[in-house]
């Protein structure tokens, strides 16, 4: 269904959409920015978020609508044609929905490593302003979070927002916390604003990015009646690796005694075992490894391991793919991935 520009919600609206993953603080960031606009910059505004069904690690969108003080904001619908998109995790750019509807004259800010031009940036309008900020690095160095860095970047990149007002709103959310907490978030915010880097000539889209329409897997003609799922265990197709926040458990095979204790405590049911018969004819089991498609990185296996065979390591790009032992080797993971 094509969207008719004639019905765009209130022409004087300024609309921002955050694209994020649960746990990165997009909802709180949106609340801070919109609250700053309404309570500190004398604007009218609204803010809300949408969540997936998972508790952590799934796609989260947060929406900010701003208008002049005397202008009504009526609609409560999600923002379809944003003036600004802020992407909290570069990996999200691979999904076409992330930039859906971004206006030709709009602004895109994404969290990415220095020099990084992730796949999907080309979907941005050629006429849009595109900025990169290394939110993860800054947040780590300043003992803050990505969201503080990104709202600093947003407040700097967008003339509609007053940088100081947004910083004041951020600081106010840490009322009662130590000066050190306020300082680290202030530094993260300011570095986000100051280290914002314009990326030119990357967008290929002519005009506005078209709005994405998506359909559920089943409709009323195809779904079994009553909401019944005759598909036992099909969550096995889900990919939950984004739930890990920078750390992963690693099996050091030579230290493992195959005692089975880790299997008792693993919430993600992602340990892979095989059976064998030893030279004396006794049956045995062997822990072959971890299926990182499901591991959310809680480290309960590491904590419980009595021989030090499970260790906690920083997750480097590609490492999980390299070390992964698939639990269901024949399973096609592409279909029904969680972002499908």
């Amino acid at each position, binding site marked *: 269904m094509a969207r008719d520009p004639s019905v765009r919600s209130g022409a004087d609206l300024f609309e921002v959409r955050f694209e994020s993953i649960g746990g990165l603080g997009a909802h709180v960031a949106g609340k801070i920015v919109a609250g700053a606009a309404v309570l500190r910059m004398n604007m009218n505004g609204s803010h*809300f978020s949408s969540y997936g*069904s998972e508790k952590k690690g799934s796609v989260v969108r947060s929406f900010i609508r701003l208008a002049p003080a005397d202008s009504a904001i009526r609609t409560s619908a999600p923002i379809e044609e944003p003036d600004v998109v802020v992407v909290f995790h570069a990996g999200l750019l691979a999904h076409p929905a992330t930039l859906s509807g971004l206006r030709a004259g709009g602004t895109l800010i994404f969290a990415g490593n220095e020099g990084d031009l992730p796949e999907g940036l080309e979907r941005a309008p050629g006429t849009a302003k595109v900025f990169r900020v290394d939110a993860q690095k800054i947040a780590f160095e300043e003992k803050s979070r990505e969201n503080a860095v990104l709202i600093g970047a947003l407040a700097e990149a967008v003339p509609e927002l007053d940088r100081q007002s947004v910083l004041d709103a951020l600081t106010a959310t840490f009322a009662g916390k130590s000066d050190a907490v306020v300082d680290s978030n202030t530094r993260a915010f300011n570095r986000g604003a100051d280290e914002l880097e314009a990326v030119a000539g990357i967008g290929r889209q002519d005009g506005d990015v078209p709005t994405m329409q998506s359909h559920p897997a089943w*409709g009323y003609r195809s779904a079994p009646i009553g909401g019944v799922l005759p598909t036992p*265990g099909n969550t096995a197709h889900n990919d939950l690796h984004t739930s890990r926040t920078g750390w992963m458990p690693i099996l050091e095979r030579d230290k493992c005694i195959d005692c089975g204790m880790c299997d008792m405590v*693993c919430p*993600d049911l*992602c340990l892979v075992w095989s059976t064998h018969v030893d030279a004396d004819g006794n049956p045995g089991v062997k822990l072959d490894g971890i299926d990182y498609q499901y591991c*959310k990185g809680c480290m309960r296996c590491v904590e419980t391991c009595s021989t030090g065979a499970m260790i906690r390591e920083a997750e480097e790009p590609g490492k999980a793919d390299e070390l992964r032992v698939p639990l269901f080797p024949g399973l096609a993971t592409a*279909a029904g991935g969680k972002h499908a």
Partner: protein
Amino acid sequence: MLDQARAISPQPVRQVHDFKSGNEAAALAARDIGFHVMGYFPITPSTEVAETLSKMQADGEHDIVMIPADGEHGAAGICYGAALGGGRVLNATSSQGLLYALEQLPVQSGTRVPMVLNISTRTVSGPLDIRCDHSDIYFVLNAGWVILMARDPQAAYDLNFCAVRIGEHADVRLPVIVAYDGFLTSHQKRRIDRFDDPDAVKAFLGEREDPYTALDPEHPVTFGPYMNDPDLINNKVQQHEAMEAARRVIPEVFAEFAALSGRDYRTVDAYRMDDAEVALVLLNSAAENAKEVADSLREQGHKVGVVSPNVLRPFPTDEIRRLLRNVRAVVVGDRGDSYGAEGGNLSLEVRAALQQDPDNKTLVMSRIYGLGGKDFYATDAEEFFNEALAAAATGKVDVPFEYHGAYAGDDAAGPPPGLPPIQSEAVSRGMAKVTPNPDTNKLEVELKPLWEMTTTPSRIAPGHGACPGCGFFPMLRQAYNVLEGNVVVLFQTGCAMVTTTGYPKTAHRITYIHNLFQNGAATLSGLVEMYHERVRRGELPAAPEGEDTTFIMVTGDGGMDIGMGAALGTAHRNHKMIILEYDNQGYMNTGSQLSYATPFGHRTSTSEVGDAMSGKRFHHKDTPQIFAACNLPYVFTASEGYPEDFMRKMSKAQWYAQRQGLVYGKVLSFCPLNWRTADDAAQEVLQAAIDCCFFPLYEVEKGATHVTYDPDAIGRRRPVGEWLGMMGKTKHILAPEHADQLEMTEQEIGRRWRRLKIKSEHPEL
């Protein structure tokens, strides 16, 4: 005169800007009104009202008595009782909570006891969906309550004040609902103006005056007599007249409120209706979305407008008739169907109103839209307008009734297929050998080593959406390691249900049923009896002794609050099944509200910590002892941190459930998110809870108690404070100013532990 939207006029009393969601606005109104009592039970998306009030209470901002009920039915009872006492009473609920309370609603209106109930509207089950539509509010149209519709957070704030006045009016004397859209309004922050002039608010509200109260010993009265014909119909005439009086009183109160606030509400919100030839009739937030489309269509020369009742009961029949008199075609959008009636309730009532006007020629179309939170975009409103414009132009309606925005599906698509079914033989590996000991009359269990269990095919698949570190899945995995044969599970609503069955995917590889947590135990008991009856009739294969299908009802500790009645009834009937409770000490699925299993002093989102309040105010429920008192074959406690102990008990549970009757087990289950610990802290925190005797591991087998882990006996007893110091939700109890709270905790834990040990030592207890 109806054609004015709410206008912001110069403010007669002092007000301040704020930036609040609908739930927060309702909570602010509650604070500013100063209700006496709130009885409530958490349900998304209304829970935030109680949560916000709990935070405010901890900070000393109000002194409303907040009573966490055992369920919405109990909450409605608390509110009814409190309101009989002559003070101001508040509640907030949604969806199934409203339906669970429904039985009480006509009692309250029929006996004419005012209060205010905020409803954050949400679709009703099943299947369970937490998002907005109006199917819940449609169920209460016949409850005899005044119903006000709040289209945005400002209205949620404002209409709470009006609700108090309308309900308490001497000619009305009815309870009042304020309904706003779940998530769309309840969770969307907007700029609002709130009062900053307590004296003016107080003057507006006045004092509640009750002709009768239950707290006036000098004038004893009987509330709720037994009344048959010929009297009941007369009582109902009075109720009808009260609702008709509300028709008159509501505009009066709205006018007074306009003078106070500068915000002018009408019984029907009419937008650009003066010369409208085509209109949409919509409730709440969708009407606001449609207004923007009306503006752009007006710019294109179309005479369109939007009609949206601010009052649903009494239904504003005259205003609707007047507004639509010259409208040629209207689309009425219903966020909820009245199945088989060819229109939702709003459509039916609009049609009925117009039918009474002999001169009316308006063409009416009904559209069901936005169910279960499906968004209503400008393009949707535009489609409705276009359909109405087409009907107005042609003078006829092609499709009188239709669902809007549904999707037929694509046969080539669909969710990914399931995994191969779990074969009974593959999971019946003898991991626990259960033998009755004729000397002790008890069961003995021999467990295989843990490593042998690792290759048991799992009845639960990975890929579920639980939080990192969640203790439920280790528990389930351990249980499944030792259970033999066919298993059917029923999960009551809770984290484990939500995270394993997000449509169109399921983590369950065996048959799984969900029912709401009032009723899981009863539901499963029905299935158990059907199984045995169909086996008896030869319709299902009979199994050798000890190989019948095992039925397990899985519940959180919250489900053992609201579902306690059904669970105890099931226990007393002694069906052959297991009730397995994972106790993570709160309603963790909905954001950590207190349950009765939450220990004393612990912080939750409805038992906040601040200068004026310090966590939960009463001790944790001793659920295993309650079930032990049902004289069941087997009751146990366990921890996912002690796999061998738990698996031994689980295998005994299966033995008893297949042969003798009902088993109840409670398993302490780690929740790092809401206990506020690291994701990998399970082992030390669970161990501390057990070693300090907060959570003793024991079993009650055929009436005899046996402590299976005694920290005193092996020198591992630790102070309660060591456990409390490990969790963010309890650290405050160790502060010097809460020394009394720590002492009370120690005393209660010590008292329960000593009693348990005495029972364990005595053969008859």
